[in-house]
């Protein structure tokens, strides 16, 4: 059976499963459409949240980000998990007790202001739309890579699938497909990781393999990896190289950004009780940690395998104890077939610059020292000859590098699609809820019946899918940069306003509105000053380098400062203006205690 047939079967089976769930879990009311009738158990919701949260970026890109930077990029691991502690302690139980359907709805009620609600909707739309573009592009890329169709065909197939379960089932359909998608994606991620860890360290748990002995050389694996990469002129894997301040701020920005993402928050509206919301955040993190504790092992081991493929001597002894891999081996050896496969996609490229028939991989961006300088001189090297190594290859090519059977490759393909589709569906639900519930029902046409609202919700879902697909087909050039924007906005606008709404009764509508505007505006401006206005290349007013950043704070970390500004402005403005009305203070009192959450409030 060819690899293509295998991919087709595995992906086809996973899709049949999602469609089956879609037909079974149709939504009959707005409570089902927006919040799965609040009948989702904490473990099920935890699993759905994990799939909702772990996007194509977590699945495909994160291990590569860690692989090529090492310790410094631990920020992603801590930042994207630590946010769940904030969610569980500071937001989820209280918002569940509040018992409504959307995040802007809480902002509007707590700050007794339609303007505050609309600002909440604007933040939500910017965050979720920028995020969904990346997911849709991910669907297209994965399809085209594994099923030999064009990017746009793949995208339309993915959109049709999301349409089926999201429009029919709303939150209910999305929840149960996300559970299925979680199982597919975690299986796909773990199998190659277990094999690669067994091969290198003899330890079948990648989390332990990372800290155990590299079998072939007898050295501690991480020490061996450090030696190998520093021999080739790269920065050590376990060392700390970047600014400490920025590392702290970036981690914090990812954490509070995670806690402020609307599509994650609304998942906690689906559980029956307040105590379930707390527990469910714990389960979500358990399921997320299954991938996040494996990712650093995948990253470091795949980097080792790739580098040792280029310098075969490193497998057992010193890096330069044998010559580099030959061009002939790369082009003909059966065990290096994967290099030729990935060359076609452009994610991997090599060039024998000095014409010696060998491909030498090293860091040519720094002044070489020690043995490397000698090797460069002896072999007449004129530059690094492994010219392209894309981050994403660390996960995508992992099964092939480790020589795993074809069905594992097919499962990885289905896993990548599951990760992208589940996150896209969650985002689309947040978008369509904001449009139908906050804008149409909440502002433009408050008198529509529940049946009409359900229809409106379905139409806005279909419309959101169409917009997301069109944006995915023609992604704006700045798509990759917008992640910083999405997290920065969630951190600087949504997280602070929700937290203050629950914990500080004194914050009134003026404080909330001006706080959100100030936090959001400073964050956006800071990002645009360094990344270019509206991300248009060349319009940045200052170079995007650590020397030019204010106090060395990178644009991606600035959400923390934006959040701080939001808090300060909200406190100052609230103290200068009226006391929060008594009935709103009562509302805050009531969301602070769990009792009474069972009686879901319906407008």
């Amino acid at each position, binding site marked *: 059976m060819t690899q293509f047939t295998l991919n087709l079967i595995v992906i086809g089976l996973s899709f049949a499963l999602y469609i089956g769930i879609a037909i079974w879990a149709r939504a009959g009311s707005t409570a089902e459409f927006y919040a799965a009738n609040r009948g989702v158990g904490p473990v099920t919701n935890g699993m759905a949240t994990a799939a909702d949260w772990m996007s194509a970026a977590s699945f495909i890109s994160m291990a590569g980000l860690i692989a090529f930077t090492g310790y410094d990029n631990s920020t992603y691991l*801590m930042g994207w998990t630590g946010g769940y502690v904030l969610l569980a302690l500071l937001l989820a139980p209280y918002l569940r007790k509040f018992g409504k359907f959307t995040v802007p709805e809480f902002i509007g009620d707590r700050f007794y202001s339609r303007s505050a609600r609309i600002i909440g909707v604007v933040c939500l739309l910017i965050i979720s739309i920028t995020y969904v573009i990346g997911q849709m592009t991910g669907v297209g890329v994965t399809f085209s890579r594994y099923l030999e169709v064009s990017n746009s065909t793949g995208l339309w197939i993915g959109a049709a699938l999301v349409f089926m379960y999201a429009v029919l089932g709303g939150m209910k359909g999305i929840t149960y497909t996300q559970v299925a998608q979680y199982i597919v994606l975690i299986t796909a991620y773990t199998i190659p990781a277990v094999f690669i860890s067994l091969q290198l360290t003899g330890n079948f748990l990648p989390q332990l393999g990372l800290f155990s002995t590299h079998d072939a050389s007898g050295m501690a694996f991480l020490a061996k990896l450090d030696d190998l990469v520093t021999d080739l002129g790269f920065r050590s894997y376990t060392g700390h190289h970047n600014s400490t301040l920025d590392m702290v701020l970036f981690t914090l920005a990812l954490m509070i950004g995670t806690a402020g993402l609307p599509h994650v928050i609304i998942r906690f509206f689906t559980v029956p009780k307040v105590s379930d919301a707390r527990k469910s955040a714990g389960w979500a993190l358990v399921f997320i940690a299954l991938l996040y504790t494996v990712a650093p092992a995948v990253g470091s081991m795949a980097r080792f395998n790739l580098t040792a493929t280029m310098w075969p001597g490193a497998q057992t002894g010193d890096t330069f104890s044998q010559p580099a891999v030959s061009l002939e081996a790369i082009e003909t050896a059966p065990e290096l077939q994967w290099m030729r496969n990935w060359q076609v996609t452009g994610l991997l490229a090599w060039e024998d610059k000095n014409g010696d028939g060998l491909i030498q991989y090293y860091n040519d961006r720094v002044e070489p020292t020690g043995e490397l300088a000698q090797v460069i001189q002896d072999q007449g090297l004129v530059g690094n000859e492994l010219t392209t190594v894309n981050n994403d290859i660390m996960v995508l090519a992992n099964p092939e590098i480790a020589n795993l059977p074809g069905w594992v490759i097919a499962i990885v393909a289905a896993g990548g699609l599951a990760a992208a589709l589940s996150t896209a569906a969650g985002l689309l639900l947040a978008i369509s809820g904001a449009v139908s519930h906050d804008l149409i029902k909440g502002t433009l046409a408050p008198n529509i019946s529940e049946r009409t609202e359900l229809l409106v919700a379905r139409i806005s879902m279909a419309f959101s899918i169409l917009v997301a697909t069109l944006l995915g087909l023609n992604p704006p050039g700045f798509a990759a940069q917008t992640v910083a924007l999405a997290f920065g906005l969630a951190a600087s606008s949504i997280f602070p306003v929700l937290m203050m709404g629950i914990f500080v009764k004194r914050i009134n509508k003026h404080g909330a509105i001006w706080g959100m505007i100030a936090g959001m505006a400073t964050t956006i401006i800071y990002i645009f000053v360094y990344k270019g206005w509206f991300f248009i290349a060349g319009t940045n007013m200052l170079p995007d380098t650590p020397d030019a950043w204010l106090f060395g704070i990178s644009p991606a970390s600035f959400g923390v400062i934006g959040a701080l500004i939001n808090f300060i402005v909200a406190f100052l403005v609230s103290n200068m203006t009226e006391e929060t009305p008594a009935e709103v203070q009562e509302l805050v009192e009531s969301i602070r205690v769990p009792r009474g959450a069972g009686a879901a409030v319906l407008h």
Partner: protein
Amino acid sequence: MSDRTSSNAYWQANLRIIYICIAIWALVSYGFAILLRPLLAGIPIGGTDLGFWFAQQGSILTFIVLIFFYAWRMNRLDAEYGVDE
């Protein structure tokens, strides 16, 4: 919520638990994994040091324990103050 004082005492107790959990949350991630890593450099673990382990494994595991601890402790607190569901 029976009366103001008990709900206030409940809220104060909740805040105390949150402060403790947040302190541990910050200690393992910003502390052990980043700022205090040089101090932990003397404790070797599998080819690197304890700070690296906290950055890539330990902090995440601690986060999980923290959330379940908070959920368990709050269930008890809810029952003590008669505000459970």
